[in-house]
């Protein structure tokens, strides 16, 4: 408990500074766009309706989806810009998060801006006109000062929304307080989840209170309150952002990770080896499994671990299964030729998709392989992770064994195992390197017809680092060095309920075993 709290607290300066920077930029940009738009909308019905409708429409898109949508959009724009102007820009991380959050912050500012300006007493407007003010003079000397408290209330709402939604920037590769929540959810580290929630809520509340001070100062025309709020915000932002200034240059290497324990551990392992070689490293974890390869191909991350079957089916679009060795050879050539990506080599274990059942249940039903399962499936529930059912592997298993389940349910990987243990699911799409297979006494059902491709864990290196001697030297020794039992043990130490390790601790244990093995 104390360990996990201390580990979370150590990450706070980095996460908080990134979170504040992102929220601050999004809010500033949102204000810069919404305020002039609100003025235009308050002047003209023709602008008001589409502006408010557009902003409301954005608000109806779930914020996670909004953030996710900007990644392919920016990727396409980056591609166009390379074709036309010869340069690219990062499609992952800060840029898509900033754009999505900016859009997200606009509605309250826009709505309150229009309400504030159109709500000014008509007699005051008539006086301003009657005295010979121009439209601009009226706006700055009368309308905006009078609408300021209402506009500030909108800014407050926007700030709270933006700070809350910024936690969702983690899956598109932008570090935020959401890293606590997403990683904590995967490793069942509830201390981290709670820490992230409290930090994000605390930040939102503090900003809300300080903006509230500004708002009430504007409403009551008490300049000292406005100043107190503004100074409080400035000092708070400066404090939160100070770690960014301290670190100076950006980290030299970025290691990517998908959103499960094994990936966190392997990313820490690779980062540790690079740091051991004297390099500065940042880890971008919780990347979506479709976006992570594209991020690597675009050199936005430098290395990560993927699985041969996943690359074979999803990146190359292959549906055949020529066997483990052929898949590796085929991948190495195809990825290098097509994207300039280097497949450094397999780590030595497979993390295959496999259908698994509780041992007692399998025995009771008399299911020993996928062939047996096909006969019983119509009465059973399949629990899967979020992507399995849309992957070609499932289509292949489904058609080859003619599987027809009573029901299909998707879970976060962690909850999928829970569902199996609780009997909510009878069969799950397990991962063969998962420590919980042994610990929960599960049986992996054999696949006699080879419907599932091999899933060797392989290190991929970005085109930009293809000839980077330091990176290659640091990661090469990992090739062939991790067997499935070592990986299962490491995964289980993070996933279990008692005596949990952080991914960094598990990586250190794994690194220790490698050293011992190398020494022998």
């Amino acid at each position, binding site marked *: 408990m104390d360990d996990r709290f201390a580990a979370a607290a150590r990450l706070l300066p980095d996460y908080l500074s990134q979170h504040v920077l992102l929220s601050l930029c999004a809010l500033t940009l949102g204000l810069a766009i919404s305020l002039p738009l609100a003025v235009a909308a308050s002047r003209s019905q023709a602008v008001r309706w589409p502006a408010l409708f557009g902003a409301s429409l954005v608000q109806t898109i779930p914020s996670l989806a909004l953030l996710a949508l900007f990644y392919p959009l920016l990727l396409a724009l980056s591609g166009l810009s390379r074709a036309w102007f010869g340069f690219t820009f990062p499609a992952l991380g800060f840029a898509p998060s900033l754009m999505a959050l900016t859009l997200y912050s606009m509605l309250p500012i826009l709505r309150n801006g229009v309400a504030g300006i159109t709500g000014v*007493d008509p007699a005051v407007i*008539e*006086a*301003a006109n009657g*005295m*010979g003010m121009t439209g601009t003079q009226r706006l700055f000397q009368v309308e905006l000062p009078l609408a300021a408290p209402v506009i500030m209330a909108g800014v407050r709402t926007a700030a709270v929304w933006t700070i809350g939604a910024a936690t969702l920037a983690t899956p598109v590769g932008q570090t935020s307080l959401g890293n606590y929540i997403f990683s904590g959810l995967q490793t069942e580290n509830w201390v981290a989840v709670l820490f992230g929630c409290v930090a994000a809520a605390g930040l939102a509340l503090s900003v809300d209170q300080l903006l509230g001070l500004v708002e009430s100062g504007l409403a009551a025309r008490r300049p000292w309150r406005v100043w107190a709020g503004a100074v409080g915000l400035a000092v708070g932002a400066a404090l939160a952002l100070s770690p960014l200034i301290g670190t100076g240059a950006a980290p030299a290497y970025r290691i990517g990770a998908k959103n499960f324990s094994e990936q966190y551990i392997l990313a820490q392992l690779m980062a540790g080896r690079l740091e051991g070689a004297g390099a500065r490293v940042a880890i971008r974890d919780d990347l979506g499994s479709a976006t992570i390869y594209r991020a690597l191909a675009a050199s936005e991350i430098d290395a990560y671990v993927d699985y041969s079957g996943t690359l074979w089916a999803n990146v190359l679009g292959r549906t055949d299964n020529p066997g483990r060795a052929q898949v590796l050879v085929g991948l190495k050539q195809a990825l290098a030729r097509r994207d300039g990506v280097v497949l450094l080599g397999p780590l030595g274990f497979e993390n295959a998709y496999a259908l698994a059942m509780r041992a007692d249940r399998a025995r009771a039903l008399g299911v020993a392989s996928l062939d047996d399962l096909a006969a019983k499936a119509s009465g059973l529930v399949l629990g899967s992770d979020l992507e399995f059912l849309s992957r070609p592997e499932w289509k292949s298993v489904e058609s080859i064994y003619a599987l027809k389940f009573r029901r299909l349910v998707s879970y976060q990987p962690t909850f999928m195992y829970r569902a199996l243990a609780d009997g909510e699911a009878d069969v799950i799409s397990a991962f063969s390197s998962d420590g919980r297979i042994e610990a929960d006494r599960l049986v992996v059902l054999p696949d006699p017809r080879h419907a599932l491709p091999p899933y060797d864990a392989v290190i991929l290196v970005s085109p930009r680092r293809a000839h980077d001697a330091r990176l290659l030297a640091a990661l090469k020794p990992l090739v062939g060095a991790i067997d499935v039992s070592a990986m299962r043990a490491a995964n289980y130490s993070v996933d279990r309920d008692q005596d949990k390790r952080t991914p960094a601790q598990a990586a250190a244990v794994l690194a220790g075993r490698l050293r011992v093995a190398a020494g022998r």
Partner: protein
Amino acid sequence: MIELLGVVKAYGGAPAAGPLSLSIPAGTFVAILGGSGSGKTTTLKMINGLVVPDAGEVRIDGAPTGATPGHLLRRRMGYVFQEVGLFPHMTVGENIAVGPRLAGWTPERTAQRLTTLLELVALPAELAARLPAELSGGQRQRVGLARALAAEPAIMLMDEPFGALDPVVREALGRDYRALHERLSLTTVMVTHDVMEALLLADRIVVMQSGAILADDTPGALLADHPEPDVRALMETPRAQARRVEALAAERGADAREPDGRG
């Protein structure tokens, strides 16, 4: 000299005022008298360009107003209306200083003018630092007057300026304004629906009905037997009221003596 030459204004096809022509010599106090919908406010606002006529022309001292941008035209005229429209986020002093600031006066000249104006509208100097919300209705209208007079306009346009005030304050303010009109040699056009107010303050009364001028004469001439029946009826109202008030007062006087007799 204000001239309206065949001006017409319609809102969405419904005629509001005109075609009408009117000439107001410098230094005159003219009341435009009429009920609601008579077109009196539209006529007033055509003078300072808050309402732009569909046809016809407005001239100030011989120059057509269409040639000047509206806001520059309005800076040369004072404008006072029933709701006053003081800027709630500015102090009384700041409200009054708006006109001089728009006209580009120096701060010294503006400060001097502020002192003069508060005296002129009979407000204590310490009121300059107050916010409009802290004032009474009468004080607010006096500030409105001071604000309108601040940039030393030659023409004052007033739309029911005292309409929202109680009768005592209204009477006092009306009299005070009439004195200011004389003292500053202003040209004043005041819209009102109150016959008594028009009779007591104006040199000349323009009676409007359904967007047209029904009568245009001195109060004395209008009170004398006017050929227009509607004007006669209008002028009869304050007289009839005055007679009834007199009668009531006499009756009350008779009642009041009785208890005395018993006691």
